[in-house]
């Protein structure tokens, strides 16, 4: 089910709605159709391709974005729900050339191969560590249960998350 | 999935058998049957059957093939179709057997084997199964009703 411009083409008679929201710190004002998902708007209207489409039924996690800090499945959340709120995608983590500590942790821990699940993994990790800065392995597994990877076998992802946890705790005063 | 239905009809087995080939009558007996036509008499038919399954609706254009036929006792029919709106394929194999029970009439047994694939199957397998059982049971009852009314009228 490819996302093309076709899917977001607006017919004259279709209902539309105006939404204002923030993505990666940038404000957007868009006129969209209520039926557009957050994923469709991020990719097709805003050109942010880091958030992926895979299962389309909210079970795989590659479409994970943070909505007011909360991980959600962008494929099954209407863009309408982002009105007046803040969205964080993978593109919003690095500061210019400087990678986010979690991104560095995933490099150090070799937490990816093809990289397709990685944006979702990293954002879910960010949300986890914000809520629980020193999670046990079971805490991590429980939280990350809904992010699937077909390449790594998960061991290196777990390592990367633990590295990220240490890095972030060191950075805090 | 496979299920059985038995009904005893107060009518001779030959009359029951002949009734099965009467397309006009059968349309009224199959629950949800909107249209039916003969493609090749005794061999192939087409029908459109619509049913509500919970909050979902299923509308199936069916290709019906007579697989086996041994008048006036045994009939195997295969009906298959796809509802594109809900991307669901249904295949039903219906085995009918008529047994003469003398003064008690004709015993008609239905053995239904059903296969469902697609979106509605994932969502409502159990639901569809129960609906199918209901439909077959209603089908059997309606055939019985029509034939027995017919017999009654014939006797008058």
């Amino acid at each position, binding site marked *: 089910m490819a996302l093309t411009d076709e899917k977001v083409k607006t017919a004259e008679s279709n209902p539309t709605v105006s939404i204002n929201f923030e993505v990666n710190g940038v404000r957007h004002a868009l006129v969209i159709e209520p039926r557009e998902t957050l994923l469709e708007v991020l990719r097709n209207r805003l050109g942010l391709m880091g958030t992926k489409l895979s299962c389309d039924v909210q079970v795989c996690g590659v479409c994970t974005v943070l909505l007011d800090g909360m*991980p959600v499945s962008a494929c099954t959340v209407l863009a309408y729900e982002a009105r007046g709120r803040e969205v964080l995608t993978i593109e919003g983590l690095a500061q210019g050339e400087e990678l986010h500590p979690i991104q560095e942790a995933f490099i150090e821990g070799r937490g990816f191969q093809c990289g397709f699940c990685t944006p979702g993994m990293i954002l879910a990790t960010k949300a986890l560590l914000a809520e629980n800065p020193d999670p046990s392995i079971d805490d991590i597994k429980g939280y990350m249960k*809904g992010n699937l990877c077909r390449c790594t076998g998960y061991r290196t992802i777990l390592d990367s998350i633990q590295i990220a946890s240490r890095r972030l705790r060191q950075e805090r005063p | 999935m496979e299920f059985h239905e038995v009904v005893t009809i107060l009518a001779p087995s030959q009359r029951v058998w002949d009734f099965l080939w009467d397309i006009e009558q059968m349309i009224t007996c199959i629950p949800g049957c909107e249209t039916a036509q003969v493609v090749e008499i005794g061999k192939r038919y087409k029908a459109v059957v619509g049913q509500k399954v919970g*909050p979902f609706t299923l509308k199936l254009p069916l290709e019906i093939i007579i697989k086996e036929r041994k008048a006036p006792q045994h009939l195997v029919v295969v009906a298959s179709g796809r509802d594109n709106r809900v991307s669901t394929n249904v295949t039903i194999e219906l085995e009918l057997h008529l047994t003469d029970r003398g003064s008690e009439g004709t015993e008609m047994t239905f053995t239904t084997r059903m296969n469902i694939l697609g979106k509605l199957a994932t969502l409502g397998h159990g639901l569809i199964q129960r609906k199918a059982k209901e439909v077959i049971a209603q089908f059997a009852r309606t055939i019985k009703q029509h034939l027995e009314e017919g017999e009654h009228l014939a006797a008058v």
Partner: protein
Amino acid sequence: MQPFEIHDVPSVQDASNLLSEYGDNARLYAGGTELLLVMKSGILHYDHLINIKTVPGLNAIQYGEADHELKIGALTTHRQLERSEVVQRWLPLLAQVEREIANVRVRNVGTIGGNMCFAEPHSDPATLFLALGAQFKLASATMERTLSVDEFLVDAYEPALQPDELLTEIRVPLPGASTHGGYQRFQFHERPTVSVAVLLTLDDAHEGIKEVIVTVGCVNSKPFRATEAEALLGGKSVEEAQIASDKAGKAAAEMADPSDDLNGSSAYKKQLVAILVQRAFLQAYTRFD
């Protein structure tokens, strides 16, 4: 999805009125974690989604001291329930069940009310609510009423809601001090295959079973009380019950009517029921000091 309009409503009354106005063309929309899936797949479509997330006061979790119960707003998300201090204090079993649902993303968005109203047969909380004797509060523009779990869940995807009615609150009576619960589930695809809840009430010496409630979910069109299993365990000593738990599990399995599907064959699901009933019973027992 096909085009639709979203209507933000400020009150239960407004929601009810819109439901009456649009009839079959409208549906209540909360988290959308079930609704949007069926709409995306094209199986169902509604021209009007009535957004009840804008109705204030429907997502509170409160301990009701007067009736020793939990009052849970229908718009409470699974994640809120999982992490609520009130739930963890008064009914940790519910927090345990809520934590198992789907994944964290679904739990952040999906609501307990939505879960009940979609009436998907594979529901974890429904199995537990049945065991606890939860009550569902419904409201429309003109009236209010209360239903038990069994009355509310009529059939798969069929709640007992009138066309203009909303589920506003779930009231859960809290088990007494001599009652503990166990919950077991099995899942290997997107939905749980089997779920079992057991509530065990023992006598003061913790040697005899005063009451036992066994509910089984996901295998029939709605969760059911495994009364045959309860009969084999109730009134027995703990030792006798442990010996009988194997038979009780099988009795519960016989009451199930599962279909063969991708979650498992009918025989396999029945086997799971039998085993999970035993495990849930043991789990409940080990929770007594």
